[in-house]
């Protein structure tokens, strides 16, 4: 197959010529850059009023000021705590559950339809109930993050373990490994890519769950900062907090992707 050519290239204009001149990655960066420029110009133009849309440059300045002044710090700490607590709890409870569902396949078979339903339910509907039960503090946020994170972790760890080709444990048996040993030395390493995917998704959902819950209703946190500033008409601070959340999310995604890349390399070795 000619490299760079999609098999369906007869359907959409050929990309071969484009590829000689331009790398796809450049288009990605160019698009993002253009979007930022459009936002900046739109904010400074007559099309939007000064109170509704702030120019990105001014947002950036305000963000740096707020960060330096430390006004955002308690919120950052709350959000970070909730994310890591939720994710941590999800890992601690998710792994045993996933392993149990995999090892005892009857349990897994029974649980399958219910796990699928869990994916379908928008978990935020339980947030008001949790607030009534635990008060307006970090606990309901952690619980929501925990639940959303667990679902991803359990699903991926379990399917990672069950996708291990039968050959591997058979080799273990031949060598004479015990059940526990074969789990540690054969199943776990073989399932690492999928397990890492689960951890990655688990962290992302913990982050999304935390921010969204804080946004709906909370006493502190970055999500709360955005919605509170909106309700108080502090548009500048709202945009600064918004930008901070987006930047953090993109950075975390980038870090997780890099880690995934390293795991791939480690696997090759």
């Amino acid at each position, binding site marked *: 197959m000619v490299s760079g050519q999609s098999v369906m290239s007869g*359907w959409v204009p050929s990309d071969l010529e484009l590829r000689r001149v331009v790398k796809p990655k450049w288009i990605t960066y160019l698009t993002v850059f253009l979007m930022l420029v459009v936002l900046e110009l739109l904010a400074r133009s007559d099309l939007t009023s000064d109170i509704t849309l702030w120019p990105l440059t001014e947002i950036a300045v305000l963000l740096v000021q707020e960060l330096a002044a430390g006004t955002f710090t308690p919120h950052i700490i709350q959000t970070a705590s909730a994310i890591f607590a939720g994710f941590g709890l999800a890992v601690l409870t998710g792994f045993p559950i996933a392993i149990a569902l995999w090892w005892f396949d*009857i349990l897994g078979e029974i649980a399958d339809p219910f796990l699928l339903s869990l994916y379908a339910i928008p978990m935020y509907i339980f947030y008001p109930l949790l607030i009534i039960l635990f008060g307006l503090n970090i606990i309901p946020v952690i619980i929501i993050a925990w639940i959303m994170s667990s679902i991803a972790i359990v699903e991926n760890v379990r399917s990672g373990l069950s996708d291990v080709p039968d050959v591997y444990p058979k080799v273990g048996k031949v060598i004479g490994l015990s059940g526990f040993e074969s789990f540690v030395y054969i199943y776990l390493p073989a399932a690492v890519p999928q397990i890492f995917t689960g951890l990655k998704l688990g962290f992302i959902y913990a982050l999304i769950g935390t921010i969204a819950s804080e946004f709906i209703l909370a006493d502190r946190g970055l999500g709360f900062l955005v919605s509170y500033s909106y309700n108080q008409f502090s548009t500048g601070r709202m945009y600064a907090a918004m930008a901070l959340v987006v930047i953090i999310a993109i950075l975390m995604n980038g870090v997780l992707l890099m880690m995934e890349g390293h795991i791939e390399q480690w696997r090759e070795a």
Partner: protein
Amino acid sequence: MSVVDKLYEQSLERRNRSQIVRFGRIAVPVTIVLVWQVLGLLYPGSIASPAQTLDTLVRGIEQGWLLKSLEVSLLRLAIAVIIAVSIGIPIGLLLGMNKFWGEAYESILLSAYSTPKVVLLPLFLLAFGIGTKYLVAFAVFHGIFPVAIVIIGGVKNIREVHLRIAEIMQLSRWKTFREIIAPSMSLPLLIALRLGFNLTFLGLILGELFQSDAGLGFQLMDALTIVDTERIFAINVVIVVLAVGVNYAMYTVERRFSNRMDINAPEY
């Protein structure tokens, strides 16, 4: 033991096992309801028992607010899902079929999918004002990305061999579409619809929880302000039943299509 005896034994085991599974699948929700009832008796202020919740549901229908909120939310949901799917599928098809543009924009799609888009909600409010329009737009914003991503995956999974055979047989574009592309894409399409529904629903609920004048999410927050636990439970039940019901229906259809695929495909 003869072969026949062994086979009979195996079929008995299988039947026993499926009986256990069926029992388990009934036992789980029953246990949940029982535990729920006990908790409702232990903490009457904070937890509404199943009996109370049922009562609230019936009263809600009689008083009208339950059906009205359901109607409002479902209408918004339907519109949002249709729009999200109508935009997401073409985007997915284009980016999937063309390797260059697909590579260029897939990372943007994936990043957008895994950020907390809820923080951008004020932008929608500022752009569309309070009311249904901003909710639908916000929900669509949530639904587009998973649809596009799944469709891209689906296009990439069309077996090259099949396309080459079509080329060799000199099939027209329409024929290729009918015989190869459409069947191959039917499962990804269904999965995309289901995920699109789920995430659009999620976005709608978030929007209604934050700022809305009517709808299920609004009812939840309204009940929260006066600590009307029974109403919260009732609405949660409605939403769960809605979400699980739709997903179950879609999943059953999906299964029929995935079985067909398995017959076709030795792994290349």
